[in-house]
């Protein structure tokens, strides 16, 4: 909980600073945009948080986003597959990818890094192969479907402002994820095995099944996110659509309090981490004094600073605790 408060304060500070340096930050347009992007990236981050909690990693998220992002319009516009079947296929492929990752990690005991790094290459290659590197989009069709990503729910009382639907979808996903993680035995098992897989196994927990579940959730969220991304922008280039998205997702999760050692993390923290990343990107765009091309450097520095501070605080607390006990 302390971590969540810490990240929330950091988010607040960055927002206030940006608002002071740029008069465009608090415009309705910009806030809508921020919420939409936080929603889209938040879905990816929540997914990867489950994998990170098992002390795993998923590097294939960006490629899954791409595979789904170009695969869906390709099926609909090139193959003319019926909408229902196309959605079912996208959904099935995402789940299958997660399931395969989980099996490889648990049954064959290949390191998650290696499994999903190969996934990153394979799905990107497949996406580019099936589309022959052609940009994919929906043109002017499938308005009803695109509504999912482009619609805004107008906020009562504020003229000309609406909360983007992806943000609301993300909130829904986050609530479900938080219930799964904190209120169900499966969530407890995930946290337990993330801390100590052996002890969890010795307690009769089917650790393999739980780990596979985490990878399936992650890939499903990547697929869902990928669909929303392409519905939002309506144009996806197979060569770079979703590039680096896994790193944004992982960074947001880590910033939000997940430890890559596993067993730690809150959904609220992950959402706040995602929001912080998006605000930082906006800040770089809006504040004229900042050169645009150092975006990655700033994001990297903030994440490093956040994690290092967290580590130092932890150490300080542990020392104080030890000193207290020595006195007692």
């Amino acid at each position: 909980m302390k971590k969540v408060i810490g990240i929330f304060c950091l988010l607040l500070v960055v927002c206030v600073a940006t608002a002071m340096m740029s008069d465009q930050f608090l415009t309705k347009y910009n806030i809508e945009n921020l919420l939409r992007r936080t929603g889209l990236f938040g879905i990816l981050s929540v997914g990867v948080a489950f994998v990170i909690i098992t002390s795993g990693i998923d590097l294939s998220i960006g490629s899954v986003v791409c595979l789904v992002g170009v695969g869906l319009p390709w099926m609909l516009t090139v193959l003319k597959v019926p909408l229902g079947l196309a959605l079912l296929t996208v959904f099935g492929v995402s789940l299958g990818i997660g399931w395969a990752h989980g099996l490889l990690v648990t049954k064959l005991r290949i390191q998650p890094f290696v499994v999903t790094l190969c996934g990153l290459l394979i799905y990107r290659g497949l996406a580019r192969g099936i589309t022959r590197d052609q940009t994919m989009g929906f043109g002017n069709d499938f308005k009803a479907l695109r509504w999912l990503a482009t619609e805004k729910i107008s906020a009562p009382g504020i003229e000309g402002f609406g909360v983007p639907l992806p943000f609301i979808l993300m909130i829904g996903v986050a609530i479900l994820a938080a219930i799964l993680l904190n209120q169900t035995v499966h969530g407890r098992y995930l946290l337990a095995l993330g801390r100590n897989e052996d002890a969890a196994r010795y307690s009769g927990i089917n650790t393999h099944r739980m780990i596979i579940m985490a990878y399936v959730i992650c890939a499903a969220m990547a697929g869902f996110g990928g669909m929303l991304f392409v519905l939002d922008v309506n144009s996806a280039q197979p060569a770079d659509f979703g590039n680096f998205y896994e790193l944004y997702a992982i960074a947001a999760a880590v910033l939000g309090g997940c430890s890559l050692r596993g067993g730690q993390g809150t959904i609220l923290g992950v959402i706040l981490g995602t929001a912080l990343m998006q605000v930082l990107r906006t800040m770089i765009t809006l504040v004229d004094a900042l050169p645009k091309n150092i975006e990655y450097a700033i994001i990297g520095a903030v994440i490093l600073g956040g994690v290092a501070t967290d580590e130092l605080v932890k150490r300080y607390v542990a020392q104080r605790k030890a000193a207290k006990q020595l006195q007692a």
Partner: protein
Amino acid sequence: MSLDLAAAPAETTSAPLLEVRGIVKQFPGVKALREVNLTVSRGEVLAVVGENGAGKSTLMKILAGVQSYDAGTVLLDGVEIRVDSVEAALSHGIALIHQELNLADNLTVGANLFLGREPRRWGMVIDHDRIARDARQWLDRVGLEVDPQTLVSDLSIGRQQMVEIAKALSVNARVLIMDEPTSSLTQHEAEQLKNVIRDLSGRGVSIVYISHRLGEVRELAHRVSVLRDGANAGELRDGQITHENLVRLMVGRDVSQFYRRADATKESRAMAASNPPLLQARGLKTFAYPREALDFELRAGEIVGIAGLVGAGRTEVLQTLFGIEPAIEGEILISGKPVRALCPRDAIDAGLALVPEDRKAQGVILAMTVRSNLSLASLRQRQRRGFLPKAYEEELSARSIANLNIKTPGDEQEVGFLSGGNQQKVALGKWLALEPRILLLDEPTRGIDVGAKAEIYRIMESLAARGVGILFASSEMEEVLGLSDRALVMHEGRIRGVLARAELSEEAIMRLATGQAATPTLSTG
């Protein structure tokens, strides 16, 4: 030899070589050492004994610079020294031979001897010829006839230990600390080691020697220092070094009271003996010794110990029964019905529970709360459509903390902050929630203090009295002797003998455990 050394009270004329005064060490939740004193003279063999958790290993690690200390002084030749790193300790001539060997087993013997201080040519290239030459000299000192080019992984544990000793000598160690050096050695290797120790002592090297084997202590030590609960409990010399004296100092009270059970429960034990078998293993082959078929049984209300040296296959028997590693072959019957324990969940459903050997790695989850740890094993049965049974968790943790006397500020405390004994009670408590019919315990009291030990014993007894069958593996002789209705003694994967309570003695167990003896009662039950 020991006689004349002890007869000359060197301490009165010359200052001790190494002196430790008032060492204090605090771990989260437990005071491991409270103002411990220790002295060693030149060429002396000092045995440090004490129960697990008495603080011996912590003290040795402090002397070797592996662990820091919170207060106290260390003097060498009467001069205060700081041993705040392994390098510092080594530079003063203090070297520790670890319980777990610290060799890089992918490198050669020679490379290990000179690791970190390799002789070089032109300041850059490792001088392999010199390593081989110099290594030979140090290996000869410990009577180890292996080629310095041999890979360490190709050596037996005993020989690896000799390499460690040679390595310590090669940095001019004046004080050699050995933590349970014989625990994983064969009889023959242990004899060799004893000779090396005597030889080194004759050359003026001081040896600080931790051992659980009281026979060995009697044989080797000039002096014995006993630790109990992190404090000095007393000292014995020569004639005073008897089994009774050692155990009395270690335990701090009369042994017969400590290890229960003496005769008060005679009747219930007599009843247990007539119960039908609760657990039977027939031709069971474990993954560690796939060629050895094991047969044994356990009755309701019976406490059966498994004795044996490290590596005898005790842990593997328990792990196989519990489905951690499925059996290669053979049958497990519970109340006469065959069960397949392919995974822990199957075993749990069949009424089994295992408190594993390595508490911190397998028994509990240190970074989770007492409450979450206690409910972890029974969540599956108590879940409400997948949701956490929060009321049950609260009720269970309150009940367990009270019944098992778990000392914790509250059930939201992380288990890592509890003392070893209380951690062990949590590891046990999570199974009691399931009311198992058969309780398997692997080293039930490793590394916990004497008070907690007694409590664990009481819990085991009361469970047995209620008809739970208990099978426990232990390296502590006293525990096996004191608690078992029967003891299985294992050696290299085989059950060498089954000793009834009347036949139980340290000698009988050691004979079987070292594989020398004929097997008088090989049948089970």
